[in-house]
Every structure is written in structure tokens, then in C-alpha cells.
């Protein structure tokens, strides 16, 4: 019966709201007296355990969880910041710009390492690598490449095999894809060489990691570049079809971040959820694993730094120039 009510509820609200959600779910415990709206780019399956454990500790709360892509998330939130309480996204640059532009609430009570927060408003809660994911079948007889250079060599050596069998983010649509690409580009020129090689072979462009991994598993593509390692790992546990490579030349590590809307009307509850989220992601679990990669920095590991420079590639002119370059390389 309850599911039915929830369903009706969803139908009504979604008809009122023109946004097209990738997913949308309502979690509640007991008689809900308070509700919290979370706008997120993280797939529900990964985030649901965190919400559920929060509800166990805090009954009588309803949590609405909206999922959309990082770029549209930014757009939706900027349009109506009073509609949502918590914003969770993997696009660090967009999140940081939201804080810089004054959309986030300062939460002074939270204690968090300084490298994992910005302005006491933006809090990181995962560390996730950008990975090269391969279909094992395609690399049966050759050495599996460990770096971007290796990959370039491999692609060049078997151009007919890899024709139209490579995938990567469409940086024009995906905020996270744009972040990964710009960070790669600023680190090394190898990125542009790889893009040109990929463009020459014909590359499929994806909006999201999920779709890319789907196609990889089904064999539609053999190589996916800059996929979210955590999503791929989740799939790898189920089927042994894919190989995840963290490039040894320079790894790119992203942090998923959360912020509380400056215009939230449920500040105390939002703060409590934030506290819960950060605790959940920083505590060492004896039994079971985190549904999302925890916030543990391995020795020598480096992440994309939370600093104003993240806004560099969000600059209109810079973005235009970058996209132009990228298109010139990948779409041939």
C-alpha cells in the first residue's frame, strides 16, 4: 500500500516538475514528520545504504533522493536553490564554483581534514580514481597496457580491431567527464595524443559511466577511457569480464563532494545528514564494505585539489577553447 502511495506521490511531483530524472526515490521511516531533499549525481544503489543507516538512527524522516547528471544537476540547482537541501556531485569543479558563488551554507561544527573540504562548506566523502577499463576478451593475447602510452601503442598496433570499439565521456554533456579530461589535459600532453588516436579510430561518446560499462560488458566496445573506477569495480564483482587499470603514468583521483544549500529550510537536519555521511565514509568498517569508496588517502596518493583553480576550465572562454580542441581531436 505504501509503495502505491509513494508511486502516486512520485507521479504527481514529477508531473509538476519538468525535470527529467535519471532516478528518483523516496525513503522514509515510520511516520515522517520532516523531509529532506537530496539532489545527487550518485546512482541510488550506491547511496541507498547511507540513507538507510541514517533513517535507522533518525526515525520519522522522509528523504527524497533525486539523481541526475553532474552538468544538469548544477543547472537545476542554480535555477532553484531553495528546492533542495543537500547537493551531492562528483564534479568537483562545479561544486566548488557553487560554493564560491555563495550557494552553500557554512557548517562550522563539522571537523574534517582540510584537504577534503573547502570554506567549511564543501565536504569530500570519497576518493575515486579515473580508470581505463578493458574487456578482457579483447586483450587475450597481448599484454594489458598499464599507462596511457601503452594504450596508445596498443591502439595503433591494431587499428582495424579497435575501429569504433572505444568509448569515453562526452565532455560536452558530462560534468565529471569534463573534469577528468581537463585535469588530464593540464597534467600531460599525452592526453591530447591519446584523444587524437581515439578520434582516428572512431570513438563512442557516453553521458555516464554506467552506460559505458554496460557496453563494455556486452562487448560493444573493448576500451573505455576515464571511467569511474568505483562503478566499474561494482560490476567487476559480479562478472569477470572486465579489467580495471589505474594508469601508472599519472593517476587522476576525484573526490565526491557534498554541500548544504544556503537556502535550505531544514538546516539542522541537513547538517545531521552531512555529519552522518562524513562519519560513514571516514570510519573503518570491521565487517562489510562501504557502498561507496571511503575517504582514505593511501600513502603517496593524490587527489584533484579543492582550490579556486578548479574554476579555470569552467571559464566560458577556456571551456569554448577546450571543447573546440577536444572536438577537433576526437570527432574526425
Amino acid at each position: 500500500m505504501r509503495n502505491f502511495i509513494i508511486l502516486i506521490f512520485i507521479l504527481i511531483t514529477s508531473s509538476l516538475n519538468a525535470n527529467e530524472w535519471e532516478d528518483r526515490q523516496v525513503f522514509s521511516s515510520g511516520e515522517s514528520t520532516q523531509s529532506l531533499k537530496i539532489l545527487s549525481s550518485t546512482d541510488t544503489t550506491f547511496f541507498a545504504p547511507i540513507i538507510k543507516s541514517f533513517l535507522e538512527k533518525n526515525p520519522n524522516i522522509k528523504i527524497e533522493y533525486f539523481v541526475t547528471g553532474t552538468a544538469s544537476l548544477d543547472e537545476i540547482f542554480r535555477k532553484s536553490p531553495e528546492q533542495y537541501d543537500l547537493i551531492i556531485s562528483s564534479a568537483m569543479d562545479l561544486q566548488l564554483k557553487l560554493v564560491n558563488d555563495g550557494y552553500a551554507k557554512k557548517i562550522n561544527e563539522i571537523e574534517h581534514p582540510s584537504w577534503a573540504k573547502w570554506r567549511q562548506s564543501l565536504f569530500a566523502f570519497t576518493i575515486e580514481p579515473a580508470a581505463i577499463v578493458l574487456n578482457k576478451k579483447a586483450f587475450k593475447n597481448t599484454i594489458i597496457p598499464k599507462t596511457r602510452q601503452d594504450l596508445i601503442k596498443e591502439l595503433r598496433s591494431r587499428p582495424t580491431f579497435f575501429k569504433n570499439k572505444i568509448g569515453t565521456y562526452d565532455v560536452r554533456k558530462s560534468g565529471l567527464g569534463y573534469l577528468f579530461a581537463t585535469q588530464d589535459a593540464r597534467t600531460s600532453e599525452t592526453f591530447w595524443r591519446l584523444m587524437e588516436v581515439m578520434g582516428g579510430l572512431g570513438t563512442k561518446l557516453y553521458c555516464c559511466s554506467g552506460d559505458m560499462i554496460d557496453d563494455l560488458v556486452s562487448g560493444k566496445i573493448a576500451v573505455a577511457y576515464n571511467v569511474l573506477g568505483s562503478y566499474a569495480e561494482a560490476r567487476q564483482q559480479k562478472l569477470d569480464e572486465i579489467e580495471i587499470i589505474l594508469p601508472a603514468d599519472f593517476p587522476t583521483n576525484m573526490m565526491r563532494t557534498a554541500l548544504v544549500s544556503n537556502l535550505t529550510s531544514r538546516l539542522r537536519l541537513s547538517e545531521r545528514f552531512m555529519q552522518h555521511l562524513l562519519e560513514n565514509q571516514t570510519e573503518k568498517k570491521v565487517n562489510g564494505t562501504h557502498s561507496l569508496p571511503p575517504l582514505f588517502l593511501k600513502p603517496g596518493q593524490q587527489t584533484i585539489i579543492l582550490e579556486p583553480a578548479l574554476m579555470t576550465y569552467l571559464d566560458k572562454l577556456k571551456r569554448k577553447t577546450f571543447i573546440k580542441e577536444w572536438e577537433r581531436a576526437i570527432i574526425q
Partner: protein
Amino acid sequence: MTNKLQVSGSLRNRLMFTLISGAAVLGIVLFFIVRGYAAQIAQNGQDDILEASLSSILDAVVIQDGFVEVDFPYASLSMLDTELDDRVFYSIYNDGILISGYEDLPQTEKNNTDTNTFTTIKYKNTNVRMASAKRTLIGEKERITISVSIAQTQDALSRTLNRISKNVALFGSGFFILVTLLSYWATASTISPLMRLATSVTKRGPQDLSPFEKKVPSEMYPLVTSLNKLMTRLDLSLKQSEDFIAEAAHRVRTPLATVRSYADATLQRVSKRENRDALRSMVRAIDEASRAASQLLDHAMITFRTDNLQKELINLNALIQNLIDNLEPIAEMKDIKLKLIQKDKIELSGDFILIQNAIRNIIDNALKYSPDDGVITVTIATNPEPHLKIQDQGPGFPPEDLDNLKSRFKRGQNSNGIVGSGLGLTIAQDVANAHEAKLTLSNHEKGGACVTLLF
């Protein structure tokens, strides 16, 4: 000397107040100067970074295929990262048209020169420091002007300033406390010569009118000089008046003696009763006058001699025996018996004439107040201390007068009808003081006055 001196403030408090308030003012001024200076340095630091960021953006401006491209490096914004994660805003204008950045970020008005300008403005409800500059490029067809502004919030800067302010305030308070302690010490040491002078004036005896000769600070020199001059004048005028009294007494005594001898001679010749009575009254009055004159002379002599004591060894027993022998005839006239008890022998060093004079005055007094057929007992003893006691059987001292009887010209309230000037006890007291002896007056239990000289 009855009107009380008015007290108006205190030199020490005034000095302390001046020093401490001076230190407070100085401390506050110093605080603002240091804080302002620190603020300027901190601001310069922020300006330098903003300027570097600004020029790195301007350097990246190129015209490609007729379009303006600003491919500024990652470092342009990266260098603006601060400890407190300050927010960063920027805007890029091409001939006044926004081509990138924050459109609501105000542009600086004075865009007249090529130099960079720095302003502090209010943006998004917070203070931001903004640097602006422009660059002119010559394209294929036209000249274009690119102006760039980059602004940063001042959270880290204010924290630094607050830290500095706190430290400076702490130093300032320490400095103030130190100055307060120092000014207390300085005040005390400045005031102390004045206090010493006051103490030494207070400690002086009533007759001591000698000038102050100790070293004094230059500021006190005029005061002490004036004081010394005043005392010299006072001393001089005192001496003059005493000389005058002595001179007057001396001049009066001789004519009085002449008048007395004439009165005596006339008394022998007249036989009428009322005439004889009148002459007797006259003789008594003359006696009184001449006695007063001689006491005044004695006193003047004593004042002079006490200033220049001529000490010798005196046998007190012999001195008193001699005195009593001389006074015996006068005592016999009143049927008074003079009894000398010599328990011990006393020898002392002193001015013979002064001591003789003093004791004679005491015995004279006793003779005057003693009733007829009375006994005056003079005792010399050394137990418990060497002393001389003269005791009569008269009415004794009025108890309420015991304290001021030793002053000059003071006579007891029961002295009516008795010849005297009131100088007797004063002379005795002055002599005792000059010899560091003690004169005490008391009344005997069985009646009669008792004068004791303790040597």
C-alpha cells in the same frame, strides 16, 4: 597658626596620572600605528598575488582567427588559494562587453592608464579586494582593449590582522603595566627628597632655627633657600626682641632700686598710719617690678647661655647648700624653715650659673607659695636616678594647669596676690632642656607642690 592649610591635590598623584595617561595614550596610538602598518603589509601581500594572477590572465590574451581567446593557465587561480579558502571572482571585458567571468562584478571607473588599480569593494555582501588592469591588442582590422578584474575575499587577511591585533594589544597592555610600575617607582623617588625635608622640619626642636645644610635637588633649592632665609630672619627678630626686653629690664632696674631706697627712707620718717600703709604698698609694688625685671634679665641671660653652654663639673650638694644659706634670711622673714636632705652626692657637668639660677627660681617659687611656719624640703638623691626634689606645703599646682605652667608668663590660677612674673618655671625648664634633664611638676599627697629635676 590656627587656620588650617588647604590641601589641593597631590604632587605624587598628579605625576602618576600624567605618566600613566601618557603611557595609555602612547600605547593606543602605537596599537593603531602598528595595526595600520600590519594591515598595509598584509594588503600589499594580497595585492601582489592578485597582480601576478591578473598579469598571467592578461598575458594569455590572443587574437586567433579574428576571435579573442583568453587561455589563461591553471596557476592564475591556483595561486589565489589561501589558508581560509577565500572566494575568487573575475571578469574579462572586451571593449566594455563581458566575454567571461562574473558579469555583476563591478568594474573600476578610472581606467585611464595602463597601470594596475586596486580597490576594496563590497560584492556579494562581503568585502573583496579587486585588482584591475587592461591591455590593448592590435588585430587585423581594429584595436581592441581587454580589461580584466580579479577579486578575492579577505577572510585569511582578516584572520592574520586579528592575530596581529591581538598580539599587539597584548604587547601594548604589557607595556602599559610596565610603565605603570615604572611611573610608581619614578614618582616615589622624585617625591622622596620632599618627604625627607618635611620629616627633618618636623623633627626639629622648637628652638632650632638653624638653616638646612643637606644637599637638595635643584628644583627644591629655591624653596629650601627661602625657608632658610625665613628662619634666619625669625631667629634674628627673636634675638632682637629678647635683647630689647633685657635692655628694657636693665634700664628699669636701677631707677627702681633708687625709688625703693627713697621709699624706705621716707617710711622711716613718716609716722602717720595711712601714709605708712601707702608707702608699704609702694615698696611691695616696687619689689614686684624689680623682681620681674631681674627675672626677665635672668631669662635673657639663660637664653643666651643655653645657646653657648659653658660646661664645668658641678658639685650639686655644695651648690644647693650655698643657695639655702643665701635664702635663709628671706625664709626667716616668713618663718619658713628650709630643710636640706642630702641622701647622696651628685656631681654633674653643666653650666654653673644656669643651674644655680634654675634651682633658685624653684626655691623662690616655693617660698612664695609656702604658708607661714611652713617647711620646704630639698632632697638630693640618686635612687632610682640622680634627682633633686623641692617640696613645699603650699596649695600645690592646680591640676588642670600642670601641663602649661612651664610656658613663659603663665601663672597658676591660685597665684592671685602673690608677687611674680611667671618666668620662674620657664627658666627652670629651659635650663633643664639645655642640660638634657627632665623637669616634672606634681602635687604631694598631703598637700603642697613638688618639683623634681631628673638628671
